[in-house]
């Protein structure tokens, strides 16, 4: 009973009805193609953006690496700084505690602490 109902089902239009289905299919296909092309274009531009960003990032990374290298080598430079061993400094000795004869030919001034 129900089978018969299904078979008769909705009225199917013959003739021009088929063309509509074809037209619909064509329209759908065109839409899919258009969408695909659009997506492809978008993907292309996205790829370009990503590539550009990547290269910008690489540049920045190189800059950072250079900076890190500079900072990393700084302590060694600082250790080398300080008084110039080739210079003669006039260190005040008057009134400072000393050991040895006041008129000694060699005076060693010692900057020191207790800890």
């Amino acid at each position, binding site marked *: 009973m129900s089978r018969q109902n299904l078979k008769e089902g909705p009225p199917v239009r013959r003739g021009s009805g088929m063309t509509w289905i074809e037209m619909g299919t064509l329209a759908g296909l065109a839409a899919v193609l258009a969408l695909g092309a659009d997506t492809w274009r978008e993907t292309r531009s996205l790829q370009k953006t990503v590539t550009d960003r990547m290269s910008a990032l690489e540049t920045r990374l190189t800059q950072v690496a250079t900076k890190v290298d500079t900072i990393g080598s700084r302590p060694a430079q600082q250790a080398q700084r300080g*008084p*110039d061993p080739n210079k003669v*400094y006039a260190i005040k000795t008057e009134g*400072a505690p000393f*050991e040895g004869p006041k008129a000694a030919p060699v005076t*060693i*001034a010692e*900057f*020191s602490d207790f800890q």
Partner: protein
Amino acid sequence: MYGDKVRIVWKHFPLDFHPKAPMAHLATAAAAEQGKFWPMHDKIFGAQDKMDRAQYEQYAKDLGLDLKRFKESLDTAHGKAVIDADIAEAKSVGVTGTPAFFVNGRFLSGAKPFNEFAAVINAELQKQNIPIPPAAQQALAAPGGGAPGK
């Protein structure tokens, strides 16, 4: 080794990151006011695990100092001006760590082996036509000696 040829002058340079250093330097300055800098220096230097004011006052007593005067000096931070002047001088010539030595004005950092000191001292003596003590010459000739720039 150098007998009467060398004089050692003390310059205060308490490092910023040593919290107990300022009081220790004040204590030696207070002792210096009574002519006992080096004995106080030796006591503090000899027991760096016991660095506080009570300990310094005990040292002052042991050294026979006028304790009232010593305490007053600490109370008023009397030695601070001298200590600060030394720190300022150290910084002005670029000293950043201790000990730092100036042999007749020539800089030597404390991390140097003895023979480098001897080399500089000997050069200073030679400049003044003063004979180098034989013991100092022997020290330089010893293994690892090698005085730079004769």
